[in-house]
């Protein structure tokens, strides 16, 4: 029941602008809405959060004066302490218990973090509603199926309750699963006071200090709000507020057209709002494979009540007050000149997520964050200011910024647990799938075509691209949802899968055949003969693999060539 996918967005950083280009092929530019573990829920009380942070700072000094920070303790309270009970921390804790580690998890807010409480989970509830609304409202679609439906309507509070109830349910599942396994849940905000030593406590209570052989930082992220934008939580909001669906504005400006923005545009337009996208880059949906984003724009943006401004920053957003609407000042991203002013009923800031690492006490162990992210190596080991590894300290999930997705955090956590239990492990981020739950969905694994071409040129191999359309898939046509494309980027010489991108009905569920193949190193020539049930959407991938032209022969040890049953 973990939150699987996440919605997310071009990675962002508090200091630079929200539109930075990443060169590294691994650095997929989206981030899961996830948990933040120390748990200051910025959305509810960002100012009180700040108070708490300063409190933490002060007590830190106190403990520093006790003077025994520099030496690690000889015996430990726990084998593993995880700071932050989001999806990443939860995944790590479960695996740690399985491996026989005495584990504690520190959480200052609610268990589940961003994903469960303010991200993937409640957004899926809203998107489930928007998908159905969309279907019921599409007279043309209904007619084509021979269905007659009278007016579809919705009750805003009912929809909001559905999202909230889902979050509560998943939260209690998560909590119970940890309790049942004997993970100690320590309540309070965790601060690292020295090597293998963590202090936690609630404001106004005495702090407890616990020691552990290994520590994992899994504090997650918070919505990133560029400067100049005043968030009032009513008319200028972040995803945190939007997920409560306190009102459905007639016209909402969405700043950022990544995962978060896209998913919310799907929700809002289905509920009757009109949407204006504000994107800093020249193209909408910058994180996706260009061909996919082109098609997605044609299906998800152009026919809907959405318009957009690209190549502009929202440099100033003033909430609605004194009878005035929300005012959005747009500045040209290149010339830095004022370009336009929008007057809207609400603005949603979906410019990405910023790591939540402030007040973690990293300075006590000589670690300096980079734009807020905790620097780590490929094994999630924290790197200090001098470039040396900090022993027994790891950081996973949004806080390290490698791949801001809930399930990536969980995978990183499991990878760390493997390492501390004596098995070296490096997570292949290129095998981690991502999905955007619009209608229809978008999913991907591995490299985009431009990234693959760059890599191919650098490393001197050839790449090929295969594509199949949902229009040729029986199941998709039965559902009258033939709009869609699956795209495979591969090496024709050895059949290696470099990237798979899907836009179409249930794309988020379809991607796993490809991501599993990437994770297991399965080559196209081996997977192409695997049998798919007919008629299913999975045949889109079947056809995709079959249409690839690979020179290498199928490996003889291919499991599918062996007899399955006696």
């Amino acid at each position, binding site marked *: 029941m973990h939150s699987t996918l996440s919605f997310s967005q071009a990675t962002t950083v508090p200091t630079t602008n929200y539109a930075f280009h990443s060169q590294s092929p691994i650095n997929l530019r989206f981030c899961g809405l996830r948990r933040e573990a120390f748990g200051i829920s910025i959305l509810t009380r960002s100012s009180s959060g700040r108070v708490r942070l300063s409190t933490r700072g002060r007590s830190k000094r106190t403990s520093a004066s006790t003077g025994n920070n520099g030496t690690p303790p000889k015996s430990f309270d726990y084998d593993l302490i995880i700071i932050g009970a989001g999806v990443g921390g939860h995944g790590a804790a479960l695996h740690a218990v399985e491996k026989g580690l005495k584990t504690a998890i520190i959480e200052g807010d609610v268990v589940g973090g961003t994903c469960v409480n303010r991200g993937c989970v409640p957004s899926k509830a809203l998107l489930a509603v928007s998908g159905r609304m969309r279907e019921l409202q599409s007279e043309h679609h209904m007619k084509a199926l021979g269905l007659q439906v009278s*007016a579809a309507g919705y009750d805003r509070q009912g929809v909001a309750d559905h999202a909230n109830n889902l979050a509560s349910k998943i939260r209690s599942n998560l909590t119970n699963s940890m309790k049942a396994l004997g993970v100690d849940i320590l309540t309070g905000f965790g601060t690292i006071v020295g090597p293998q030593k963590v202090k936690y406590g609630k404001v106004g209570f005495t702090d407890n200090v616990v020691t552990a052989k290994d520590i994992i930082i899994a504090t997650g992220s918070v919505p990133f709000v560029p400067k100049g934008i005043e968030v009032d939580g009513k008319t200028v909001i972040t995803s945190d507020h939007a997920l409560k669906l306190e009102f459905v504005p*007639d016209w909402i400006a969405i700043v950022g057209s990544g995962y978060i923005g896209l998913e919310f545009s799907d929700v809002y337009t289905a509920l009757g709002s009109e949407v204006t996208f504000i994107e800093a880059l020249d193209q909408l949906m910058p994180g996706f494979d260009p*061909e996919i984003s082109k098609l997605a724009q044609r299906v998800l943006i152009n026919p809907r*009540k959405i*318009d957009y401004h690209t190549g502009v920053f929202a440099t100033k957003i003033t909430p609605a007050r004194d009878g*005035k609407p929300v005012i959005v000042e747009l500045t040209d991203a290149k010339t830095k000149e004022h370009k336009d002013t929008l007057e809207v009923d609400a603005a949603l800031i979906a410019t990405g997520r910023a790591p939540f690492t402030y007040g973690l006490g990293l300075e006590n162990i000589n670690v300096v964050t980079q734009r807020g992210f905790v620097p780590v190596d490929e094994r999630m080991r924290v790197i200090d200011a001098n470039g040396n590894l900090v022993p027994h300290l790891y950081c996973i999930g949004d806080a390290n910024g490698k791949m801001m997705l809930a399930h990536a955090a969980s995978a990183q956590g499991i990878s760390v647990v493997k390492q501390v239990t004596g098995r070296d492990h490096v997570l292949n981020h290129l095998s981690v799938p991502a999905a955007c739950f619009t209608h229809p969905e978008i999913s991907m694994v591995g490299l985009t075509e431009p990234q693959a071409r760059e890599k191919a040129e650098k490393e001197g191999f050839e790449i090929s691209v295969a594509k199949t*359309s949902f229009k040729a898939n029986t199941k998709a046509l039965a559902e009258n949802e033939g709009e869609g494309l699956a795209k495979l980027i591969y090496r024709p010489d050895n059949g290696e899968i470099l990237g798979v991108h899907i836009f179409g009905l249930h794309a988020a569920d379809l991607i796993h055949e490809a991501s599993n193949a990437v994770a297991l190193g399965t080559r196209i020539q081996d997977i192409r003969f695997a049998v798919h049930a007919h008629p299913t959407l999975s045949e889109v991938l079947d056809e995709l693999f079959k249409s690839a032209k690979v020179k290498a022969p199928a490996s003889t040890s291919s499991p599918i060539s062996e007899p399955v049953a006696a």
Partner: protein
Amino acid sequence: MANVLQTSFLPSTSSLRRRSISGSKGKSQSLQVKAKIREIFMPALSSTMTEGKIVSWMKSEGDKLSKGESVVVVESDKADMDVESFHEGFLAAIMVEEGGVAPVGSAIALLAETEDEIAEAKAKSQSSSNSTPQVVEEKPKQIEEAAPDVPAAAAAPSVPVAKAVTLGSAVHPASEGGKRIVASPYAKKLAKELKVDLGTVVGSGPLGRIVAKDVEAAAVAVPVAASPAKPDPVAPGIELGTVVPFTTMQGAVSRNMVESLSVPTFRVGYTITTNALDALYKKIKSKGVTMTALLAKATALALVQHPVVNSCCRDGNSFTYNSSINIAVAVAIDGGLITPVLQDADKVDIYTLSRKWKELVDKARAKQLQPHEYNTGTFTLSNLGMFGVDRFDAILPPGTGAIMAVGASQPSVVASMDGRIGMKNQMQVNVTADHRVIYGADLAAFLQTLAKIVEDPKDLTF
């Protein structure tokens, strides 16, 4: 990127190629001889493709094309493909807009060899687009499309348009004196589609913002207001054997009439004795009261008692009960039809109503009606009685619930209940109504009330 198709515009399948070339040979050849204007055809991108949808034009009219350059993205039954130009030249005219569908082999654009030929190609595309019915547009074609064909459109008195501009969104607090237009995303999209100039639209949304329904209203209104005044039409002015495109107003009428086909209408007729009304008319005629005003007044008073007949069905799911009773009266004007509206006809006294009517008719003739003066009707009257028509049937204007066709009042021989035979002036009325909101019994009751009012018209002058 979509597959780059080297085959270019010409259909690649041999059978299709043969067909399409032979189909268009005559036209394009004669052109090529004269001006080297080539047609760009919808290519066959797969063996099963019969028609293609234009996803996007990568070039716009007037752009220079070099050989092998991608010009248009076409969506077939399988996938999207970029289509390249086979020839060098200028994209002179796009004949199928983005989103439009065209059969394989039909012309979708014209390619001119030199810049000078662009105008010629454009002219050609216009004449041929009028005669290429096979080009199926996904969205309803815009009315203004025909505008360039209307001679004198630009030179015609553009007074109403200018008026409308001043009416524009200047009321919006942030519009800086009309410099900035605040319109919702969908309103902007619709305006582009319906070719409505947002500067001429009055916003009714929050803080005067222009919303979709304002654009829709303007789309119906603008062509009517802007329709050019033609020189006095003489019947023989019609040249037989020609096809004359609609003026913008006629286009709007046509669209409205077709739109009304989607409304389930029914008709109820009634014969009303008008002796008393005729007597009243004679009495107060000298005070400037017109028969139209009397009928409108009587109708409005009857509507007060039957609000459902004054309602309409906007979305197919609900009754919209109008707060005021605005009687629209159809008036034939040169080359068209317009419906000036007597607002609050139930509340305004008969003399004021008559003056108002005269003013509206004068304005209508001068083509100076403001949008609110012809598109706010809640119930429509159409009277052909003056031509001696004794009964007819009207088409319901979209957005309203009912229209009443009024025939001539004629002396008739009537048998009365007491067994006598007498003469009475009688007129037939026939109401067409939207059965989604107005039912037979509603109309019957309304007509009964109307008959009572007309037969005992003392309330009309109160």
